[in-house]
């Protein structure tokens, strides 16, 4: 290996190489890709599987509404069995549910990261009054009990936007959830970025830019932002799973995505009470969501190690 080759490696490329070498992170990445493909390809899977997410099979339930047969009605036709009560197919609902959950989590993570980064940079660089105001808003947002506010606000919004005889489309509910996450979720990123910027702003390259008469926008987004990619990427990758869980927690309180739209959180919530009588129903969605979140967390951890070798193994 010649010295010139070594010298030509950018920090980004070095990080990529470190990530490639981390076996756990790569397994996680492949797992995530599989989950992603299942979610995106849900309609195709429905076609191949031959059963839709709203189709009911109540004749396969006993008089208590429990699926007949073994392990929650698992059969060649229903791979993961049937839901007690409504008698819908669990496998296809999980595929569609993953689609809903992943979309909400990704969108919420993007929105909160953007807001957090912008406000964090502004507060950290400008300091003074603006910093004080933004920091106070962060404190305020942290002091608000998130779940209680979500519980109060989410059901109300739909009533304001849709007439009493109009069905509220799922896309609107999804947008509301993303909005709620955005209002409360940006603070963490903002705090982190603000701290980083404070330590960067007195560095020579920023002073140099300032001395050259660079505009504020240029300094904030051309000079500072490129130096923040690593922590932002890591927070982003860890934010996605936290919104997957967050969305499930809202469903747990009955304010997430509602019937009949398939959704991971709602499914787990509904299944939990059947833990003793139909454990298979709890098992499939519960383990899948754990695997999904674990894969995200392991990948995020690997990414952190790759980008910031000092903290890693």
């Amino acid at each position, binding site marked *: 290996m010649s010295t010139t080759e070594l010298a030509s490696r950018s920090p980004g490329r070095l990080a990529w190489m470190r990530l490639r070498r981390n076996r756990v992170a790569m397994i996680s990445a492949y797992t995530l890709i599989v989950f992603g493909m299942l979610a995106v390809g849900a309609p195709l899977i429905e076609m191949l599987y031959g059963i839709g997410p*709203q189709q*009911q099979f*109540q004749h396969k*339930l*006993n*008089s*208590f*509404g*429990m*699926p*007949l*047969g*073994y*392990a*929650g*009605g698992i059969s060649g036709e229903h791979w993961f069995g049937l839901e*007690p*009560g*409504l*008698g819908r197919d669990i496998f296809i609902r999980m595929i569609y549910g993953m689609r809903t959950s992943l979309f909400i989590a990704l969108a919420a993570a993007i929105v909160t990261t953007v807001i957090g980064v912008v406000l964090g940079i502004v507060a950290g660089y400008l300091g003074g009054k603006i910093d004080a105001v933004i920091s106070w808003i962060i404190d305020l947002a942290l002091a608000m009990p998130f779940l209680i506010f979500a519980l109060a606000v989410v*059901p109300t919004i*739909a*009533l304001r936007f849709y*007439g*009493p*005889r*109009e*069905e*509220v489309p799922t896309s609107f509910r999804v947008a509301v959830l993303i909005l709620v996450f955005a209002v409360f979720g940006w603070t963490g990123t903002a705090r982190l970025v603000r701290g980083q910027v404070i330590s960067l702003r007195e560095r020579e390259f920023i002073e140099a830019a300032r001395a050259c008469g660079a505009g504020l926008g240029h300094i904030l987004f051309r000079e500072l932002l490129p130096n923040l990619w690593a922590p932002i990427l890591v927070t982003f990758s860890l934010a996605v799973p936290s919104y997957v869980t967050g969305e499930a927690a809202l469903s747990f309180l*009955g304010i997430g995505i*509602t*019937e*009949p739209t398939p959704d991971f959180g709602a499914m787990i*919530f*509904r299944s939990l*009470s*059947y*833990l*003793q*009588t*139909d*454990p*298979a129903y*709890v*098992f499939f969605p519960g*383990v899948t969501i*754990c*695997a999904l979140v*674990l894969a995200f967390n392991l990948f995020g951890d690997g990414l952190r190690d790759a980008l910031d070798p000092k903290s890693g193994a």
Partner: protein
Amino acid sequence: MYARIAGVVMLLAAVTACTKTTNEGNNVDTNRVTTGVIAMDPKDSRGPAPEVPGATKGGTLTILRLTKISHMDPQRVYSFAGLMNASLYARYLTTWKDDGKGNLTLVGDLAETPGKNVNGDCKVWEFKLKSGLKFEDGRPITSKEVAYGIARSFDPDLTGGPTYVQEWLADDPQYDTKWDFKANKNSLPPGLSTPDASTVRFEFKKARCDLPFAVSLPASAPLPPDKDTGVNLDNMPFSSGPYKIAKHTVGVELVFERNPHWDPATDPVRHAYPDKFVWSFGADAEAGANRVIADSGPDASALAWNGVPASLVSKVAGNADYWPRTLISPTPSANRLTINTQRVKDLAVRQALNYAIDRDGLIKTLGGATVAAPMTTLMPPSTLGFQSYDAYPAGKNGNIEEAKKLLAGKTPELVLAHGDSKTSTEIATQLKSNFEKAGFKITTKAVPQDSTLDETKKKDNPWDLYMDSWAADWPSGASILPVLFDGRTIRAEGNTNSSYFNDDALNKEFDRILQLDPVAQAPEWAKLDQRIMKEHAPAVPLYADVAYFLHGSKAGGLYVSSVFGYPAFTNAYVKS
């Protein structure tokens, strides 16, 4: 870390794999019919109540419940838990003798008989009190304290209780504007009087033939004026019944101990076998049922008040060991799909909905036969004089052909409003897919759960269909059909006639039957029930709630009240 997940996987798999779900389990006797009489012979109203075979004195009976009982002040009690609880510490003018199998007799409780219809026109009633009645401090119960109890129910601060007697006395729904309790604490409301220490007399402007039933509610319980603590009485009521409150930590625990001044010889229904009754609050339905299933320690003589949740039903119903400890019985809570007749004016559409309904699928969605029993009548089978019929035979899963025939190719677009709770949303999902099979186009509209009732009770509500349920305060058609379908009662909001149905011929029929003697009314209501459904179909009768309770192996004598559908404590005992 993967080993941990694998461990969980194996554990769950082990629990799952070995049991095959089949179609067996204990069943509900849903076809029984309530028979009832009013016992005019004073002998029937005398105590003591006949011994319960095998019952022994002593022990503590525990009742596990999620939330506190909403009211304990007898004049404010109206919830089912409150009504069943009140019999421990309050006595009423009349009460029901109930064998738990639907055989009911109305007898005098404080009164010697269930009331005397003085002129035979239901306008003047007299109740003569028994002798030997005492409060928890030993002083005698006289007509004065009974009348004071009724008078204080006019107090606008004491909300929550039934309002029948007040409205009848004042002859006005705004009864508290007609007579101001706070300004007249030493007098009695118009029409109420105490001719002597043992007589309570009611005089009404109109015929009120249901009075003996109305005073079987705890609101007719006595109270000495010097023990009236206003709103604070709610947490510490003053006892006239077999138990008094020993300790009450709101929302945590409520302990009853014996009231030594209660004389069983005066009481035709209560036994008071256990030394103590304890309500323990905080356990939800699942935790409560699980504790009673575990059957250890004090839970062995406990009752899970919140019932067996649908998710645990197959565990309890599928295991014969639990059957001797279960109480299972249809209740008088009748659920219907209300059709807003102001919007859905086409009778054929209403009839088509009735034909299309898949009751079996709906009941499976709710959790099966132990949660709900199908119903095709407006009045539940537990009503006096009930007669079964099916105006629109839909079979188990709905008669889609017949419904399509009635619709004749039309596609009615209907909006179904429902609460946003888990169960309500699932019901809406089920009904939507059910009706759409018959050619309807259903839009489901979620309304916040707690306001659903209020919103659908507004006359101008914008929806076509909604779920509604009605549990009568006494098992007579008089407290069901006119309440739900008398068009003259329709007002801007707070309607019980949520179908907004108004038909002159029917209104006249209501008036005619209401003038009859309560016993003669029963068969007439049954006939009218059928007529309403056949001629107008203002609702789709769906199901009656089924009471399904589990108690510990040491609890005995518990039965489901034929009047309210919740466990009654009058015969309860603890096995030693």
